[in-house]
Every structure is written in C-alpha cells, then in structure tokens.
C-alpha cells in the first residue's frame, strides 16, 4: 500500500490524503494528515478523548464532515489531537479523537481553518481506500 498519509499540491492551501484497507482507516489517516499540519503528532500526548458522531450517506460529504467536526472540537476545546478512531454503520459514523491541551513544548505548525470540497474524493482501488481534499490554512 502507498503511504497511509500523503499531501498533494494546491497553490495557496494544502491537499491531504489518507489511505487504508477500510474507508474508516482512510478517514482516520486523513485526520492524521490534517492535524500533522498543525503539530508534530509524535509529540502529542493522549490525555483527553472526545467523541464524534454524525450521519452522512454521501462518503465525500462524510469525509469533510468528519474532518471539520474534528477541527471544531479541537479549536473549541483548545486541544491538539494526535490519535483518531472511526466506525461506520451505514450512514452513521461514530469515532473518537485523543489529544492534549496546547503546551509550550509542543512544536507548532500552522492552523487549519477548514476542510473544503475542493479536490474532494473518496475512492477504492485495488482494495485500498483513498480519501482526499484540500484544507484551508
């Protein structure tokens, strides 16, 4: 399998890619790709866990909804997330994000404002799911 996390070029913002054997794994890796823009995930400790739940039948809208709910929870709770879990039951998605409050020793990248519908796709090829979109920084 190609790298579970990757990036693609966009003139002003950044394209993120998450891959996995299951669609949920691809979404989890897309979340890791997005949060790695904001912090070194290797440094983020897992002190707090936040539940994420939503309903969305369209898998592309589901990706954007998942990423944006994570961003919303991270920003509203002033947390940096480093670990993600997601389950799917039809149109119902439920997951968790784990992380810690921002601290001075945490190496910072740049803030992601939102996941966009640009470059958005969720596809499966040769048994591998790939989820991608442009995020606004």
């Amino acid at each position: 399998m190609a790298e579970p996390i990757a990036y693609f070029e966009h003139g002003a913002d950044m394209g993120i890619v998450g891959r996995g054997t299951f669609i949920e794994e691809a979404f989890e890796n897309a979340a890791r790709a997005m949060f790695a823009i904001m912090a070194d995930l290797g440094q983020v400790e897992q002190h707090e866990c936040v539940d994420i739940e939503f309903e969305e039948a369209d898998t592309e809208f589901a990706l954007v909804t998942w990423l944006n709910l994570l961003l919303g929870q991270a920003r509203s709770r002033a947390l940096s997330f480093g670990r993600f879990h997601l389950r799917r039951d039809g149109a119902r998605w439920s997951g968790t994000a784990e992380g810690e409050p921002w601290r001075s020793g945490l190496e910072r990248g740049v803030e992601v404002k939102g996941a966009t519908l640009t470059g958005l796709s969720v596809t499966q090829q040769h048994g591998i799911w790939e989820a991608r979109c442009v995020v606004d920084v």
Partner: protein
Amino acid sequence: MDLGRLKEINPWCYALTPLPGEERAPVRLYANAELLRGMDAKVLEQIANVARLPGLVGAAMTMPDAHWGYGFPIGGVAAFDADAGGIISAGGVGFDISCGIRCLRTNLDLTTLAPRLERLADVLFRAIPAGVGEEGQLKLSPGELDAVMRGGAQWALRHGYGVAADLEYIEERGCVAGAVPAEVSDLAKRRQRGEMGTLGSGNHYFEIQVVERIYDAQAAEAYGIAAGQVLVSIHCGSRGLGHQVGTDYLVTLAKAAGRLGIRLPERELACAPIKSPEGQQYLGAMNAAINIALANRQILTHLARAAFAEVLPKATLETLYDVSHNTCKVETHVVDGKPRLLYVHRKGATRAFGPGHPALPARYRAVGQPVIIGGSMGTGSWILAGNPEAQNGAFASASHGAGRAMSRHQALRLWHGRELIHELAVNGILIRTRSMRGAAEEAPGAYKDVDLVAEATEKSGLARRVALLRPKACVKG
C-alpha cells in the same frame, strides 16, 4: 496559465473567449501577460465556473493577484442581483470571513523607532496571541458573543478597546448590518470562546512598517502618511467563528443548490438564491462573522497601543483604515446607466471606493478609499487609493495581496524557518513566531512580486499607487 483562449482588451485586462456552445457571462482578468502566465490554470477554470452562476451582473472577474482557491479563485470578484435570481455563495466568501487588514499610522519615524525595535518586537510578541493553539485573554459567553456579532468594532469600543475615532476609518463604521447570531451554530460560538483578540496563523501577521516612498502626494497627505513614517498593519479575520460559519454553510449550501434547482459546475461553488431561506440564513451568519472580524481587529489595535506605550510612551497609533477582503456586501453600483443593488462577492479582493463615495470618511472623500495590498514579510506592502467607477470596471474592487507563487509544500522544500528568520534579521527585518514551519511556508520567495501586482492594479485602473511600505518587524502566527 495558457493565454491561448484569452483576448487582450488592453495590456492590463483580458477576456476569456467562450468555447463553442458555452453559455456563461463574460470573464475579465485584470493583469498583464506576465502575471497571467504565472497564474495557475485552475484560476481560469474557477472564474469560468463563477460566470455560469445565476443572476450574475456584468462579468466574473479576477484581480492581478489571483490564484487557485476553492469554488471562487482567490482574487475573484462577482456581483449578483437578488431580483434577477442571483445567488450568494459560501465559496465566494471563503472560510476566513472578513479577513482583512487594519493599518495604523504612528507619529514615529525610523530614527526614533530603530533603537527600540528589538524590544518592541519582543513586547508585541508577548502581547499579541499568535499562532495555532494560542488563546486570548478575553473569554466570552455565548450571550456576550451574540452581542459582538451584532456590534462588531462598536461593541469592542463600548468595552474599552480603542478610541471613538477608530470607527470613522473602518468599513461600515465597524458594524455591518444584517447580522443574525441565531444563524450561527453553537459549535461556531464555542470555537470563538478563546479566540477574540487573536491573530491566527498562516499568512496572518502583525507588522511594523516604514513608508519608503510616496507615489501620490495628495492622497498621502489625506491619509496622513509621509516618507520615513512608521505604520503598523494587522492582517487577520474572524477566527474560529468565521471558519465554522464557512464550514457549516459550505456543505449546507452545496446540498441546497441541487434542491433549489441550481446546477453547479462544481459543488465547491456552494450557493443558494439570495432570496431563498438558505441564502438568507447564510447572509445573516456571514454578517455576524464580519462583525466578529471587525471586533477582533479592534481588540488587536488596543493590544498594539498598549504594547507601544510600554516601549515608546509618546507613540500614538491612529487607525488609517480597516478593509476586509473576504466578504459579500450589498452595494449600489451603476450598471448600464442605472443604479442597481448588488451582492458583491470579493474573495481575496478588496473594496476600493473612489473619490466622492458617500461611505468614505470626510478626510478621504476627495482622494478615494485607502486600498491595502499586503505583501510578504520580507518584501513590502502597498497603500493605494480607490478610483472612480468610470475607471474601475470591477464594482469598485482591487487586489488584496501579493498572491502565492508556489505551494506551501514547495516552500517547505526550499526554506528552513530558523535560517530564513536569521537571513531576514541580517537584512534588518525582525521576525517573531512560534512556528518555524509557518515561517518557512511564508518565505518571501514563495510569493509573487508585490510591486508588479501593485503596478498592475494601477495600470488596469482598479486603484492608484500612493505609498510603498517596507517591513521592519513582523509577528507571525
């Protein structure tokens, strides 16, 4: 960008010729061939898509600093008439609603500033919450946030942030009408809780600049600026609340468009008829976010004054102008000899009212609105003046920045934050940041030539150059 399908109207304005059978409004690109060649081909694709949206008046346009965005290109301008089935688009405004620049003029010159610059940069870095994860001192309850959404910079002033004279020099006197806090989600309000009075990151900055050269003496005098004078520019927007409003409505409007019978060339154009319930909901939420941005820059102005007072007690900082560049605003423009009420989307574009416009403060009415083109942290920025609409064919709009010349990933491959900051310091520019990655992504070389953008803005009739500013110290997010 391949210029093959472009027809030169004049050396600073091009039209996109339609393909056989293509039905859309005209497309105008304000730039010269050099700037156009450097633009991503996606700009052309995106602005042609905008020209297919219902109710568009005149042409869909790009400014000289245009680059690939989402939905609309950044540097895109489009006006819609509600009575002609016109739409409002979340993709035409962007996530950072009312991102803009507040420019302050000081009573300092470089000679006075230079010996204290290092300390001032340190004090500002401590005073201005900047970068991902940084929160402000002000924590507002949902009820208090509703009041900010209704009051904008006027709310900030009532709560002790700034002076009354500031309001005169902010678009809409610091408070846009039509804000409906009830249309803003609870999550958006929660995202803003710790983010009032924060700078953000990415291309946002707080910069101390010096006026290097005056190009238009009359306008410079009206704006109160002279060569050698120290200015301050604050570039930021509506923070988490605005980002969440953009997020919420991008998906809502993308889904609504199909239901409302709008065929979107791409769903990232997410829009609804202005007169539809969804369109009105977005309008109310977007106006609420605009007021958050105006209040945010007002609070940062207050923090800047306190920091300057600590280092240079005799310094004064007056608001020169505050202009937003991610908005949809209701304005009257003369089209085919008749005034029409239009919803003007400016995505990465600045409003540029010309001389005599009634919305301008009396001090600037004779020369036109200050237009601020923010450059990179190592090159320069420009102040221009708005032209009469007879010259500005873009619904009183102009460029907003240098525009990126390469992606953030390309920049990361070429520069390292610490080395870049050292190089800039050697050249007399102090950078304060918590993110070395952010510094590298924002390297001056990653941006287009801001001087060329300013020249194109002038030559295409959008605005005229007044002053060139050089950076001396910059707090980056």
